[in-house]
């Protein structure tokens, strides 16, 4: 109508009281959004701090300092007819004495040998046995440096501390620097972390035994808890009468999920190891204990998946003349399977990270080779981390973080598969 009307507020009621109410309403909306954003930021921030600490602490362990040494393999030390029985200590000394010019006396040679890993002889022997053609010639081999020198190379030893409190004295550092000038030092990716088993020496310690042990334990856990859990859930959902006894069973199963995991470890020790006489530290006991913990998860997940199958499918099946077990096995279970699988993978991922029960049944023993079967002593990933965290050598500090990252990597992969499966297999009715 007039200019005043044209510039008037577009809102329905433009009095001051209404405007104030509107402002308060908008403010309340914005506040709620703000709380949500703050909560998410806090959670992501904590997660970021955790991951950053692990990565910063652990990335040195993903590379390993290697020293290239030329070992003359003379026929005096190694008999071509029987390479494995050769005197590889002498071969090693021969190679080391040629490393640094001016280092002649046996004491000095021994001191320089300490730059290389303690296992050098065995590495040499394995290389010669694999390729006997090098006997009589020279073998150029890359050998891991021992832990103090590995730390030195990665800059983790402070050269400025006074010599008497430093790990390495000036002479050792000078030797190492001259080796570096010769171009004999390299730091390739530390595949040994995944292919070697546990060892006293960090430079050759790896997770192979732990990974295999965890894999066996998870396999046993799956083989026990999957069929038992699904069968129990089917019974509770489809066949159990709705009475007091069934309620009691349901309550107890839900409580099982809340029991502290260390209690299951005690159960494993007392019953599985003492009474059943199963071997200590074996993946079979670990698997059985983990399956007790995964069972309630699978039962709950399966029941929910079965409940989500629409009753119209069941009615259609009954209408065609299917019996109870045919309806359950031919129609309900296949439709519930995606949900069951997702829940199972998540349950197994939780079981992978459980430490307390495995410690109690002894899977934290010092085992230097991967287990050959489920009845042999072994470690698991979380218990291996526990062992390394306690070890004094410098190199194990970064290796502990690296091992945690490997465990997290497996967990992320398993959960990623679960998410992928859930998206692929989810159906709309």
């Amino acid at each position, binding site marked *: 109508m007039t200019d005043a009307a044209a510039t008037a507020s577009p809102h329905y009621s433009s009095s001051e009281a209404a405007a104030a109410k509107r402002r308060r309403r908008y403010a309340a909306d914005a506040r709620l959004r703000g709380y949500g954003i703050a909560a998410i930021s806090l959670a992501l921030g904590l997660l970021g701090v955790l991951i950053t600490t692990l990565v910063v602490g652990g990335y040195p362990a993903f590379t390993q300092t290697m020293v290239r040494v030329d070992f003359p393999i003379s026929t005096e030390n190694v008999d071509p007819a029987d390479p494995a029985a050769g005197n590889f200590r002498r071969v090693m000394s021969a190679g080391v004495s040629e490393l640094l010019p001016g280092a002649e006396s046996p004491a000095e040679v021994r001191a320089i040998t300490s730059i290389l890993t303690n296992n050098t002889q065995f590495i040499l022997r394995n290389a010669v046995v694999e390729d006997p053609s090098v006997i009589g010639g020279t073998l150029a081999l890359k050998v891991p440096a021992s832990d103090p020198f590995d730390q030195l190379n990665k800059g983790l030893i402070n050269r400025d501390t006074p010599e008497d409190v430093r790990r390495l004295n000036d002479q050792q550092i000078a030797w190492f620097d001259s080796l570096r000038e010769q171009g004999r030092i390299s730091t390739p990716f530390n595949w040994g972390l995944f292919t070697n088993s546990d060892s006293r020496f960090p430079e050759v310690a790896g997770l192979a035994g732990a990974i295999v042990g965890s894999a066996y334990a998870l396999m046993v856990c799956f083989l026990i808890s999957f069929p038992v859990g699904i069968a129990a859930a089917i019974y509770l959902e489809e066949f159990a009468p709705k009475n007091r006894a069934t309620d009691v069973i349901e309550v107890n199963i839900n409580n099982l999920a809340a029991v502290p995991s260390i209690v299951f470890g005690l159960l494993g020790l007392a019953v599985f190891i003492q009474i059943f006489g199963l071997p200590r530290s074996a993946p079979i006991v670990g698997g059985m204990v983990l399956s007790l913990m995964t069972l309630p998860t699978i039962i709950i997940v399966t029941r929910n998946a079965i409940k989500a199958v629409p009753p*119209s499918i069941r*009615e*259609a099946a009954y*209408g*065609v*003349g*299917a019996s109870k077990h045919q309806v359950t096995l031919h129609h309900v279970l296949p439709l519930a399977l995606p949900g069951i699988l997702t829940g199972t993978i998540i349950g197994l991922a939780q079981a992978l990270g459980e430490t307390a029960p495995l410690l109690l049944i002894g899977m934290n023993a010092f085992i230097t080779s991967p287990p050959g079967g489920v009845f042999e002593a072994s470690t698991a990933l979380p218990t291996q981390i526990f062992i390394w965290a306690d070890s004094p050598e410098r190199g194990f500090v970064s290796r502990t973080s690296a091992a945690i990252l490997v465990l997290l990597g497996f967990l992320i992969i398993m959960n990623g598969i679960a998410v992928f499966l859930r998206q692929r297999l989810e159906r709309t009715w």
Partner: protein
Amino acid sequence: MNTVVDDIMMKPMSPVAAAPAASNRPSKVSARNVTVHYGVKQALFDVNVDIPANQVTSFIGPSGCGKSTFLRCLNRMNDTIPICKVAGEMKLDDMDIYDPRIDVVELRARVGMVFQKPNPFPKSIYENVAYGPKIHGMTRNKTELDEVVTGSIKRAGLWSEVKDRLNEPGTGLSGGQQQRLCIARAIATKPEVLLMDEPASALDPIATAIIEELIDELRANYTIIIVTHSMQQAARVSQRTAFFHLGKLIEEGRTEDIFSNPKHKQTEDYITGKIG
């Protein structure tokens, strides 16, 4: 018209006694004194009815009057509801449906059911129709099974639309096609009676017309009982009609008689739209 009104005014409101079928054929399905309770709530009060063979009988009545409940008694689908208690006698030919010695699975092969909302299995079209004959062991080899499946789909009027995509999922069809697939699935087990619980209520008018035409063709080989909300559909499709109200069977007889000459006031009220 006045005499009709007088008649209705004077007749007491009581369930009608079993009327003899229009022809003197023995009835395919018969019910005597059927009473159904859901827990403490009574859903059906003393229902007596005879369903003749090879005809379409429709059950009409307002929502909640018990017609679906009665339909579901005929193939013992109410067994799946634990709080449902059925009393009375129901016979298929001369066999007591509720005899404890009866195998429910075999009964449901003889009495097929089509539901209100199309519910094909989430399997291929072929598997949907083949499932029934397979679990009842009706065929000896793949060739026979193929014949049964093809025959059922053809009889349901769906063949031309799905013949080259039998392996595609049944849930990928349109609503009307899905319902015809469900009809094909129901007739694959070679039932004698087909129960249809508002089969076209979830479909558009064209699909509904196709289904009604199909029902008319099927009655040559099957006894069909159809529950419907639509009186026009009952008038179009059925030869006999039964009117239910508040759990009682009020009136039953030839469709044209019920619609042009109802004997009870409640029937007339429902038909003229005063109740329901």
